[in-house]
């Protein structure tokens, strides 16, 4: 993967790296300190660790000129700590990971971002949200309600577009972690047609959700139900649903990332990822290939965790719309041909400026949203010891 080939560039000076990190350090403090007064000891320690973690990672991005491997630490921590905090909260509040029907009727099913594309058509046609949650906070596990999750999604999407999948998604870190465990891929030849999988799942789930008036993906296909909450298995249908969740999780999030070193759930299955790809067209930041420098060695193509580069797209100097701006290809390129880019500007003209602007925006979002999830998961673990 990207970590194999390091850029030949000399590290940035410590002083300059610190200066560039200063805004992020201030932002982290701003995001976490307001809650300090009400927090207990383990929450304070968790917040402090999270601040240091996020600031150090950003510093290393500045110092080494690389993005992917440092972002990956954050993303894996997010993926691993989200279930810890979430499952703990669910067990404390309702004593089971299965969603009881009375909680659905009370509108207290926690709402994640994954069903957002499935709700659009029923909402547009009938003004109805086909999800057993509540629009505003409603106690229990309802959190901030659907409006809060939709607002976070919209804010992050405006800022980073499909970058959501690399800087905000609290599920993708598990498979990214799995993909980095094995030194080499055992399965190398992947049919490129698999990359249409998310679009097929998206289309099927949108139509099914409209026809059945239920969030079909959450009910039948979401692999992450295995590590968050699932349909309470009171019947054979419930058992089948939970069986599907576990099999999909084991295959797409554990086994295939280990074998392929790709984020297979994201690349081949996730309907939200396909939906989010549309917002790559509206985002001001993207990744380009400088054709004048490209040899082409296809190291970028090999390093991409979502197969968002093909020989054709490299020849055009572009990434596919499924690119989630993780920076793997940029870090992998030995010729600095894969570059961060701002739309409207010329390719490879001040790419570091584009990277900095993107990273400030993306890391600010990561700290605001992902950082709070990391801190919650850490606090849950620390609570056992402190």
């Amino acid at each position: 993967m990207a970590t194999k080939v390091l850029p030949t560039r000399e590290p940035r000076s410590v002083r300059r790296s610190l200066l560039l990190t200063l805004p992020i350090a201030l932002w982290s403090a701003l995001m976490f300190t307001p809650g300090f007064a009400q927090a207990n000891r383990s929450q304070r320690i968790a917040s402090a660790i999270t601040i240091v973690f996020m600031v150090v990672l950003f510093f290393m991005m500045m110092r080494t000129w690389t993005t992917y491997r440092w972002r990956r630490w954050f993303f894996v921590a997010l993926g691993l700590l989200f279930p810890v905090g979430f499952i703990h909260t669910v067990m404390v509040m309702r004593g089971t990971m299965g969603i009881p029907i009375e909680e659905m009727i009370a509108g207290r099913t926690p709402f994640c971002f994954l069903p957002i594309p499935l709700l659009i058509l029923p909402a547009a046609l009938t003004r109805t949200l086909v999800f057993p949650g509540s629009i505003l906070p409603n106690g229990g596990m309802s959190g901030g309600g659907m409006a809060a999750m939709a607002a976070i999604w919209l804010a992050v999407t405006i800022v980073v577009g499909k970058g959501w999948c690399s800087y905000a998604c609290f599920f993708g870190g598990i498979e990214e972690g799995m993909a980095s465990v094995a030194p080499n891929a055992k399965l190398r030849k992947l049919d490129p047609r698999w990359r249409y999988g998310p679009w097929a799942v998206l289309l099927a789930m949108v139509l099914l959700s409209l026809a059945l008036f239920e969030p079909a993906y959450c009910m039948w296909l979401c692999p992450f139900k295995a590590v968050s909450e699932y349909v309470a298995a009171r019947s054979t249908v419930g058992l089948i649903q939970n069986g599907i969740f576990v099999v999909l999780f084991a295959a797409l999030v554990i086994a295939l990332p280990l074998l392929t070193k790709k984020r297979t759930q994201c690349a081949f299955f996730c309907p939200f990822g396909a939906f989010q790809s549309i917002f790559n067209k509206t985002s001001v930041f993207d990744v380009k290939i400088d054709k004048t420098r490209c040899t082409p060695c296809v190291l970028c193509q090999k390093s991409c965790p979502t197969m968002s580069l093909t020989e054709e797209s490299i020849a055009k100097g572009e990434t596919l719309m499924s690119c989630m701006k993780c920076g793997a290809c940029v870090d992998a390129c030995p010729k600095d041909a894969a570059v961060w880019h701002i739309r409207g500007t010329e390719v490879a003209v001040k790419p570091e400026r584009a990277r900095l602007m993107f990273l400030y925006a993306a890391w600010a979002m990561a700290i605001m949203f992902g950082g709070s999830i990391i801190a919650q998961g850490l606090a849950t673990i620390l609570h056992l010891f402190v």
Partner: protein
Amino acid sequence: MRTLMAKLGYSAAGLTVCAAVLAPFVLYGMFTKGFASLGLHVDEMYSGGPKVRTVQAAGYTIDIHRQVSPHMWQREKPFVQLDWRPVSALPAHVSELVDIDGDGQPDVRVTFDVPRDPKAPLRVNVDSLNPRYEAMRNVGKQKFSDLIVRVDDAILVRVPVAQ
């Protein structure tokens, strides 16, 4: 033209960074309020539909909701939700004639026990006095259109409507 495009690009990038800074302080609240004001509502199959009448009883009230009908291929029957809400407390045993449609004639007799333990399972019997409403025998939490559940301190019964 290239310079203009570059300037526009950098301006947009700068605005995006500003949007990131404003997100937790301005955008988040603005978008939350905006979403909440869209006039959307949660599917009545989950929420039970709007309340249309309240019947007063000794120590509790019965909220009668509007009939909920399934959409297109939704795998549920139409139903009416009745909520038993304590004013002081619910009795240990409820056996109630309920006029659902408000025509002055009872439509169903609903019978259930109220265990002291809020986590204890509930079972309900519904005798149909009007062929429009289906009878239920010893029903617990089965389907959205056919159940008895406790939500906070209220007990909700959903009576299926004959199709």
